[in-house]
């Protein structure tokens, strides 16, 4: 996978505070989630990639060029900054047109691209209203629109879903996934795990300025065998199900849910457990089965807690 972005031993500190500590990684095409709690170094990572900060040490390259001091990169890079800050007096259309002119397009091309971007984020009706009067979700979407209006090859999105209602959230997640499928490199930073989970499986986990883990969530999860997996099952007769599975050598512990329908099992070998429980599941009328800690939340909590 050719790397669109490369961090080579990149560090960045603000006085005594180390924001990014000797990070070496690459980000290629497709959607990559940049995850970590507040103050983990996500924003610094993004700002280094967006050429807003120079690395105190090491090197950051985007599309083969040094990120800091290469403004021409922004022909092919789109940035959606985190602050909810706008020129409040401009309308949505004027805002996009002004920024597209700054990208070197002539007026006709600016208008075409602005309309297209507004369509992508479903803000066409509100284009002639002042941004000062937009709702929180609309402001977030117009900010998204300005980052992709010039058809960039690389997109850096800092907390794109913050403050959005479920309907808009769904719309932006689908848009990001579409951009990823088109082969663009999309780096989405967020501290809300299920947001990122909805867009991609490939993540970069950052904590205290270091990269804890990178790659597909499931691959990371499987690397941590010694940590027991949890499997939740909902059955018509949970007691019968319990009696059937408790004998299996893979079951470490078993607990009943409050409403009496749910049984939660701890197991060291999830795959073997799944195959051994199939017959018992049919007799006990299991209607639902999933692994709650296969998702990012638990992976993350587990890695951060270490």
């Amino acid at each position, binding site marked *: 996978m050719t790397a669109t972005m490369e961090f080579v031993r990149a560090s960045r500190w603000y006085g005594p505070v180390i924001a990014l500590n000797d990070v070496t990684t690459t980000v290629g095409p497709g959607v990559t989630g940049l995850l970590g709690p507040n103050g983990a170094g996500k924003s610094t990572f993004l700002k280094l990639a967006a050429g807003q900060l120079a690395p105190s040490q090491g090197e950051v390259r985007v599309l083969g060029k040094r990120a800091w001091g290469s403004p021409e990169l922004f022909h092919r890079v789109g940035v959606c900054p985190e602050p909810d800050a706008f020129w409040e007096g401009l309308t949505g259309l004027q805002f996009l047109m002004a920024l597209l002119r700054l990208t070197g397009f002539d007026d006709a091309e600016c208008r075409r691209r602005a309309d297209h971007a507004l369509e992508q984020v479903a803000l066409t009706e509100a284009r002639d209203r*002042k941004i000062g009067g937009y709702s929180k979700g609309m402001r977030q979407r117009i900010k998204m629109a300005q980052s992709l209006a010039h058809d960039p090859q690389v997109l850096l999105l800092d907390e794109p879903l913050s403050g959005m209602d479920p309907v808009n959230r769904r719309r932006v997640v689908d848009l990001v996934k579409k951009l990823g499928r088109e082969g663009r490199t999309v780096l989405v930073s967020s501290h809300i795990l299920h947001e990122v989970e909805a867009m991609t499986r490939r993540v970069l986990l950052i904590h205290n300025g270091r990269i804890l883990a990178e790659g597909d969530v499931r691959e990371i999860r499987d690397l941590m065998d010694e940590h027991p997996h949890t499997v939740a099952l909902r059955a018509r007769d949970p007691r019968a199900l319990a009696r059937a599975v408790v004998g299996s050598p893979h079951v470490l512990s078993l607990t009943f849910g409050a409403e009496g329908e749910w049984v939660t099992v701890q197991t060291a070998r999830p795959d073997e457990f799944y195959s051994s429980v199939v017959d018992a599941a049919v007799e006990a009328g299991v209607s639902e089965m999933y692994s709650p800690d296969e998702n990012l939340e638990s992976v993350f909590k587990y890695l951060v807690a270490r």
Partner: protein
Amino acid sequence: MPIYEQTYRRYEARAPLRTVRFWPITREALRLILARRAFLGLLLVAWGQFLFRVIQVYVVTRLPEAGRVLPIDGRMFGQFLAIQTLFTLLLSIFGGAGLIANDLRTGAILVYLSRPLTRRDYVLGQLGVLLALNLSVTLVPGLLLYLIALALAPDQFAKWSLAWIGPAVVLHSLVTSLVMSLIALAVSSLSRSARVAGLGFFGLVFGLEILRGVLRALYDRPESALLSVQADLQSLGNALFGITDRAFQLPWAYPALVLTAVSLACLAILRARVRAVEIVR
């Protein structure tokens, strides 16, 4: 200082509510302002004249004939406070320009007004900040100077005929500080940027002063002095301390009237501008 720049401490609303509710706003803002080194430097400079006056009193008590060059009587206090007015201008810009402007910009005003505080408490809290700053360079040094003068030259000052100096210093300091604070606060509420508010306040006070200078050069009529806030304050000071000055001959009632009108206008602006939500058309 906007809320997001402060370190977060839980606000324990103790019951029952105290009558003076605005004090935490003033205390927090003052704590933040006093933490800035540049401000302490400005304060130090503002107290420079106080030292000069103390030396002046000391020299005149030791060498009475120096009194003819630098007389130490009631008028000295008037001149002292007139110069300190310039420092209230700088302090109001430095400390006060962003008081309301930053809260309007960052939306921190919502946080204040979602506490058990009325808008009046909020304005009083912010006004308290400016009053404290301005009084610290007018009333405090003024009274201190009077006490030192009493101590160093009791024969000169410890007389009933000069007993009016103390109250005059208090009155003039209060008027100067209140007027400057109200104007600075009103201008601060008219903008969302501390810099614009600071320069707007300076432009207003100094612009009127230039206009007065031009009108005086043009028509040489005493009424032109009413136009400038600084000139009004100086007229009051001259009347209070018995200073005769050709530029300010009007009876003190006129400047007092103008200053009252200006203060009421500022309160009206504050009432209109300090609100939680700004309607964007």
